C-alpha cells in the first residue's frame, strides 16, 4: 500500500478517503437498518457525537487522537444504549421519526454546550507544533486511516453476519414474535446491533473531525449524511456485506464525477439517477444480481414487476 501511495495524487487521496469513510458509515447503518430492520434516520447523531467527543478531548484536554478516538466510540455506544432502550420499542415510521428527533436534539445540546464545544461558532482542533496532541496526518495519512477504518468495518460486519448474533438480527428483522419464541432476546439484539452500528459511525466521526480540523454542529449533525447512508445501503443492497460497499463507492464516485463535470445541474441528475436505480432495483443491486444469477432471470423489467408493491 505504501509503495502504491505516491502514485495516487493528493486530490484523489482526499476523494478516496471520503469514499472509504462512506463505506464505513454505510456498513454501520446496515447493521441496524439492514440486518435488524430498524431504519434509523438519526444515525448522523453518532457521527456528530464521535466528532465532538474526539475534538473536545483533543482541543480542551490535550488528549492524543489515539485516546480520543476510542473515547468517541464509547460515546457512540453510550448514546445508542441511552436512546435505543426506549426508541427500539417503536417500529417502522415511528422509529425513523423518533431517531430523527433524537439526532436533532443531540445537535442542539452540542450547540448549547458552548464552554465545552464552542457552540455555533464551531471547534478547531490544534494540529501544529506543541499545541497539537497528535501531529496532523495529512492527505496520505487520512487516506490510509479511512481505508483501515473501512476495512475494519467490513470485517466486523462480515464476522457478525456469519455469527449466531447475525442470524438473531435477521430473525428480529423478519418476525419479532417468532424470534422471541425460539429464545432470542429481541430487546438485547436490537440494542446491541444499534450500539455496534453507533460505534462504527462514531469512529468515522472522530477521524472526520481530525481530518476537517475545523467544523460546526450543523456540519457533523447534518441530516443529509444520514440520508446518504440510507440511500447507499438501500441502493447497494441492505442486509448484505457487499451492498453497502457497492452503494458507498458507486454513489460517492458518481456524485463527485457529476459535480466536477456537470456544474449547476449535478444534484438534479444525481437525484434522477437514484430514482431510476431504485425503481429498477428496489431490492438493491447486490440482491438483484444474487437472485438473478441463482434464478437466471436477468431482465430488470421482470424485476420491477416482481417487487411492485
Amino acid at each position, binding site marked *: 500500500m505504501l509503495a502504491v501511495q505516491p502514485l495516487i495524487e493528493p486530490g484523489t487521496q482526499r476523494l478516496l478517503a471520503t469514499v472509504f469513510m462512506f463505506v464505513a458509515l454505510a456498513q454501520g447503518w446496515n447493521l441496524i437498518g439492514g440486518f435488524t430492520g430498524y431504519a434509523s434516520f438519526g444515525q448522523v447523531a453518532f457521527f456528530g457525537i464521535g466528532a465532538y467527543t474526539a475534538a473536545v478531548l483533543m482541543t480542551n484536554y490535550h488528549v492524543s487522537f489515539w485516546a480520543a478516538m476510542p473515547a468517541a466510540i464509547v460515546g457512540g455506544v453510550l448514546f445508542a444504549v441511552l436512546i435505543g432502550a426506549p426508541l427500539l420499542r417503536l417500529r417502522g415510521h415511528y422509529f425513523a421519526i423518533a431517531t430523527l428527533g433524537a439526532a436533532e436534539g443531540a445537535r442542539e445540546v452540542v450547540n448549547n454546550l458552548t464552554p465545552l464545544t464552542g457552540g455555533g461558532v464551531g471547534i478547531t482542533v490544534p494540529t501544529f507544533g506543541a499545541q497539537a496532541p497528535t501531529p496532523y496526518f495529512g492527505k496520505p495519512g487520512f487516506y490510509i486511516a479511512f481505508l483501515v477504518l473501512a476495512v475494519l468495518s467490513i470485517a466486523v460486519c462480515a464476522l457478525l453476519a456469519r455469527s449466531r448474533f447475525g*442470524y438473531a438480527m*435477521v430473525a428480529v428483522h423478519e*418476525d419479532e414474535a417468532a*424470534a422471541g*419464541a*425460539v429464545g432470542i432476546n429481541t430487546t438485547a439484539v436490537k440494542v446491541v446491533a444499534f450500539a455496534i452500528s453507533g460505534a462504527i459511525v462514531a469512529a468515522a466521526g472522530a477521524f472526520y473531525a481530525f481530518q476537517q480540523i475545523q467544523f460546526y454542529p450543523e456540519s457533523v449533525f447534518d441530516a443529509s449524511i444520514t440520508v446518504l447512508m440510507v440511500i447507499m445501503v438501500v441502493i447497494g443492497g441492505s442486509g448484505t456485506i457487499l451492498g453497502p460497499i457497492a452503494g458507498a463507492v458507486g454513489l460517492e464516485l458518481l456524485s463527485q464525477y457529476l459535480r466536477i463535470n456537470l456544474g449547476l445541474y449535478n444534484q438534479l441528475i444525481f437525484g434522477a439517477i437514484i430514482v431510476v436505480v431504485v425503481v429498477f432495483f428496489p431490492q438493491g443491486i447486490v440482491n438483484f444480481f444474487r437472485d438473478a444469477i441463482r434464478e437466471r432471470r436477468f431482465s430488470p423489467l421482470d424485476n420491477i414487476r416482481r417487487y411492485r408493491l
Partner: protein
Amino acid sequence: MILEVRNLARRFGGVWALRDVSFSVEEGEILGVIGPNGAGKTTLINLITGHLRPTSGQVVIGGSDVTGRRPWVIAHGGVARTFQIVKPFRGLTVRENVAIGAMHGNHHDRTVHEALATADHLLELVGIASRAGAAPGELSVADARRLELAKALASRPRLLLIDEVMAGLRQQEIEAAVSLIHRLRESGITIVAVEHVMKAIVSISDRILVLHQGAILTSGAPSDVLADERVVEAYLGSRFAKRRLN
C-alpha cells in the same frame, strides 16, 4: 407437574378473551385443547409463552412462576411453540430457519455450524429434508407447518405448545402429523395441542380440555368429553344438540 395455569384471565378492551382458566399438565402427557372459533385457544398459548401478559392469574412452568416473563425467558425454560399463522423467517432458507432455534433456544448449540447440523437432523425428522435449501415461501401449506414444528423443536423443548398444526391438511398429511406427535411424546416431550380438527386431536390426546367463550367448559378423557352434550352444543349450536337428543 410441568405446567400449571392458575386462574388465568386476559381482557382485550371490554372483552374477556379468557376468564379464570385453571388446569395443569403432567410430564409426558398430551393435552388437547379444543373449542369453537374465538374460544380463547390461541390467547391461552400466547399467555403461557409470554407473547401476551395476563390481566390476572399465574403461569407456573416446572415449578417456577413465569407469569409476565418475556418470550425468550420462557423459551430458555424449555418451552417451545408453533404459530397458527406460520411465522417463518422469510429471508432465510428452510435449513437456516430451523438452525436459528438451535442457536438460541434451550441448551443451544455453540456454533452456527453445529446448529445447521441439528437443523438437518430435524428436517429429516419432520420429513422436509429435501426442501432444506428452499425459501419458506416456496413450501406447501403442509410443509410450512412442518417447518414451523421443526423450528420449535430446534430449541429443544420439554414442553411443546402446538397451535392448529393440522388445520387445512389432507387426511394423509394429518396421519403423518399424528404419528410425528406420537414420536415426539415418546422422545420425552410434553405436548399441549390446540386443534380445531376434532378427529385428529381425539386420537392423540390423553386428556382433552374444552374452552368455550374464554372459560373451561369441561375436561377429561377424550371419549367422555365427546359424549358431553354441552360440548356438542358449543360446537354445533343448541338446536343441533337438542335435535340429536330427541
